[in-house]
């Protein structure tokens, strides 16, 4: 319990620091982007509105005061106001959040299915035929840029076969193909771990014993190998959450979807910094949260692991 509390506290600190970090990165910007964006006649802000936003962000005051102000707002859940539209950032995000969540969840589903298919395949296919090819898949998947996968899928399934259209892209099939594009690199990371674990477990003595007792390949796989091999996948999936969120920027652009990724892309082109900062912090929250949960839940799934033990290594002080 004490361990859990410490981890939660640590996670909160990391999230706050992530906010500060993004703020610092963004204020490195040469020139005065905030004022530039505000004064840009394209955005059509009246002088009053500009004054209001300048006062809101404390833009007429020193940087550390600005940071303090936006940080204290962030702590109570206020993500600020978009410089482009003047709308609250939290509203902009919540409008598109569900689309990205659906995409990311489907991508994760695709990744898991693919990874387990590869993992099982390596156990079933004969060593000579097919297995080597199957084993090469993960490193191939990791070597293809995800925009190439997306363009390939669109070219074959949308343009040639006409299965879906890229224009009204929120349909089921369009989402599925976007999820495949986003999920393939993630599946590679899961498959790598899964295949290695299956190999390791099937070489263990208990597996030989089970085989010698006449247990078939499927029985061995399902009854003995599957559970210990797939537990570490939890950790990999948690780490892959970041990749799903980052990859969404490109996947959403290619498939013409509106979501967090396209919001990022638009905010980058329009230099809408509060939106960028909010999204990045949100991504950090999701990532830290998911990994925290994975770490805390893991020992419940795998009784061999005990919390805190590996962390409380005796500290060796070197005499200087």
């Amino acid at each position: 319990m004490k361990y859990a509390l410490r981890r939660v506290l640590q996670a909160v600190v990391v999230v706050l620091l992530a906010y500060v970090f993004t703020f610092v990165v963004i204020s490195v910007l040469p020139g005065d982007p905030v004022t530039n964006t505000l004064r840009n006649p394209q955005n059509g802000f009246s002088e009053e509105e500009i004054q209001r936003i300048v006062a809101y962000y404390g833009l007429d005051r020193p940087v550390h005061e600005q940071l303090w102000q936006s940080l204290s707002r962030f702590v109570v859940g206020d993500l600020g106001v978009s410089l482009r539209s003047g709308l609250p950032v939290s509203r902009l995000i919540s409008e598109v959040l569900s689309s990205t969540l659906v995409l990311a969840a489907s991508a994760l589903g695709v990744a898991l299915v693919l990874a387990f298919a590869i993992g099982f395949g390596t156990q079933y296919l004969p060593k000579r035929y097919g297995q080597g090819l199957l084993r090469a898949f993960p490193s191939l998947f990791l070597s293809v840029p995800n925009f190439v996968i997306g363009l390939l899928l669109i070219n074959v399934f949308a343009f040639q076969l006409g299965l879906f259209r890229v224009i009204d892209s929120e349909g089921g099939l369009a989402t599925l193909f976007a999820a495949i594009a986003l999920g393939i690199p993630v599946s590679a990371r899961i498959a790598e771990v899964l295949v290695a674990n299956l190999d390791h477990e099937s070489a263990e003595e208990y597996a030989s014993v089970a085989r010698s007792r006449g247990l078939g390949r499927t029985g061995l796989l399902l009854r003995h190998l599957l559970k210990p091999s797939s537990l570490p996948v939890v950790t990999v999936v948690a780490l892959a959450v970041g990749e799903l969120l980052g990859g969404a920027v490109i996947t959403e652009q290619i498939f013409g979807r509106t979501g967090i990724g396209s919001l990022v892309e638009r905010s980058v082109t329009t230099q809408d910094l509060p939106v960028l900062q909010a999204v990045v912090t949100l991504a950090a929250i999701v990532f830290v949260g998911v990994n925290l949960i994975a770490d805390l839940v893991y020992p419940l799934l795998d009784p061999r692991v005990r919390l805190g033990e590996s962390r409380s290594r005796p500290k060796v002080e070197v005499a200087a």
Partner: protein
Amino acid sequence: MSAAVALPTVRSFSTRSVPVGVVISFAVVVFVLAWSFLPGFFTSHDPAVGVPADKFQGPSSAHWFGTDHLGRDLFARVVHGSSSSVTSALIAVLIAVVVGGLIGLVAGFVGGWADTVLSRLVDVLLAIPEFLLAVIVVSALGFETINVAIATGVSAVGVFARVMRSEVLKTRRAVFVEASYLQGGARWHILTRHVLPNASRSVFTLAVLQFGFAILIIAGLAFLGYGDPPPASDWGLLVSVGKNYPLAPWLVYAPALVMIATVLSVNRISRWLRKTD
């Protein structure tokens, strides 16, 4: 005495036989590196000037990868593009190794509050998705290829810092380091003589792996248009422009295949290095 002792990093390369796949991978990487440093040596076509009459020609013996919408030779554009794509990836890895390595070294070797502070910083760097981190850094610095390289490097600092720190901690606790301390070895001596050589192997393997990932991230950023605009011909940008001409699919496939072959080779080499450890 000290001069006769070979560094542990050099030893394992020569003694083992090298698999065919790795040899091919090395060949691909050497080729691409040669492209990027001497692009003019491999193609006589100008990457920026085209012959309008020759536009949208498929791959042929005159134009290996075909020509684009302005009649420019795509092979020349890919070769010249590699000099910015591959160099950017090298710069990115260099930044990640130096900055991340330093952070990890100080955190692991000095320990105490320096470790606490730096480890939190690394936690933050690791908590922000790599690609998003690269996107905000490049948008803060401005849309140029060199900034894309810097952003990609920054996004990988956390990984290197963490590996370096754990390697340093591991070595610092080793018995031979303790012995060296007891013999009166100075901190600086321990650092340069024992800790760095031992950590360098893992960091080097990671750097090779990261080189491949850096190519992908840089291509992604260039694809989104955050690098130099055309007529620059970064691989990602070539694909991004090429996708607008579905009737000339080679405009997408040629640069994509070059990219895939390069990253695949780099990953293969990295996997081999890990295995020979």
